[in-house]
């Protein structure tokens, strides 16, 4: 009940800000279109990375939006008020997770419709799985954003966490360079990063090889969500200095 109160409140705040919603939904559509156009003479490139990219957008967006929203909650004192109230930490974190998952459904739905429709993106596996993975990645982004917001004192710092935490994962996840051709130490780092599994699951869906490895990927994504949320809960202190 209190979880839903938090989710509804976060969604209301977002709805007050139509420009942010337009950016959340519009920017991935623009990027997906650009991706198709820059590789117009090599359509296979778009076909192979179009789906993974679609599934990773929500991760990046929700990471940013969540870390800023949560930071605001910390700096304006509303978090202190909530920590003095009967609200449980889990209510707060789950409320955020639900709210941004709903936004992710909107975002992933719109980009999927464009990519699989007008842009002619094909995947061998079920398209619904690509969209579902996009939503799962959004929740992962939200969970990580909640966690890292504890380490930012200003919004400038929070914004810098995006390149610091998200970009290395995108470079190492296998999207740009196959993991098999990376140096061993880079592969080890890659093995430890959640986005690697998110990318792998999307690639498996695109090639319709929903095997054990795919199941492991999904399990790792879910595990990372739980882990990031519990780290996030640990950063929420009822009593502060």
């Amino acid at each position, binding site marked *: 009940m209190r979880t839903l*109160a938090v989710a509804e*409140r976060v969604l209301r*705040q977002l709805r*007050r800000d139509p420009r942010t919603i337009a950016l959340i939904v519009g920017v991935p559509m623009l990027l997906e279109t650009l991706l198709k156009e820059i590789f117009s003479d090599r359509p296979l490139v778009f076909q192979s990375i179009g789906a993974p990219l679609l599934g990773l957008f929500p991760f990046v967006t929700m990471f940013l939006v969540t870390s800023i929203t949560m930071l605001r909650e910390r700096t*304006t004192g509303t978090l*202190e008020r909530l920590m003095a*109230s*009967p*609200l449980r930490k889990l209510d707060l974190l789950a409320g955020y997770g639900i709210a941004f998952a709903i936004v992710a459904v909107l975002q992933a739905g719109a980009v999927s419709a464009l990519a699989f429709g007008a842009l002619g993106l094909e995947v061998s596996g079920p398209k619904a799985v690509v969209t579902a993975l996009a939503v799962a990645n959004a929740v992962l982004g939200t969970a990580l954003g909640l966690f890292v917001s504890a380490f930012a004192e200003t919004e400038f710092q929070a914004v810098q966490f995006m390149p610091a935490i998200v970009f290395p994962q995108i470079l190492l996840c296998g999207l740009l360079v196959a993991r098999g051709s990376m140096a061993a130490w880079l592969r080890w780092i890659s093995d430890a990063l959640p986005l690697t599994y998110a990318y792998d699951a999307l690639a498996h869906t695109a090639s319709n090889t929903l095997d054990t490895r795919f199941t492991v990927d999904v399990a790792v994504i879910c595990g990372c969500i739980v882990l990031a949320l519990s780290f996030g809960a640990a950063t929420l202190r*009822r009593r502060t200095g």
Partner: protein
Amino acid sequence: MHERAVSVKGLRIVRGGKVVLPDLSCAVAKGAVTGLLGPSGSGKTTLLRAVVGVQQVAGGTIDVLGLPAGSPPLRARVGYMTQAPSVYGDLTLRENLRFFARVLGAPADAVQKAIDDVSLGDHADRVVNRMSGGQRTRVSLAAALVGDPELLVLDEPTVGLDPVLRRDLWRLFHELADSGRTLLVSSHVMDEADRCDALLLLRDGLLLAQDTPASIRARTGAEQLDEAFLRLVDA
């Protein structure tokens, strides 16, 4: 002597390596308005935060409504208004209160009552960021009132308000006290001291006096509480 809503014994608080409250003992009577007065930097906010249970404490005990401060059962019974308005600026007054009412488990009609209590009926559907500073303060106060708590801890609730509104709010505080609620209200403006049933005078983390305004005046022989405060400092 009234029954106690809050009793503090030997409270010691250190913030960022600095001792803010070295060893504070005081009490807040039930069903009354107690003013916590002192200049800024005297430790008022720190003491209030400790009573609410959001401040790390280095020593001593704080009993609130018969339980240690910050105990989970107290969270719905103690209302807290922070010094800076801590509400969601991108929501309307009503949306803010609906949210806090749900968090506090308050009935739906509590929202309208809290709006009326702070005289913001005409602004209920305005986004808080577009309100004046004084209105925002009242939104924050309403968010503390909406749960109808037994103990209200208010950190400078009347700062920046015009005299008419201040009078109305103090009237509200006394109505709440008359109906059995306890209020602990901080202020750095001495002219508000006379509106309180009891006073805690704080300076540099030390309690200068703990008494009714009349007794403090009688004891110091000062007509104005401002002057009484000075005599207590010099004593």
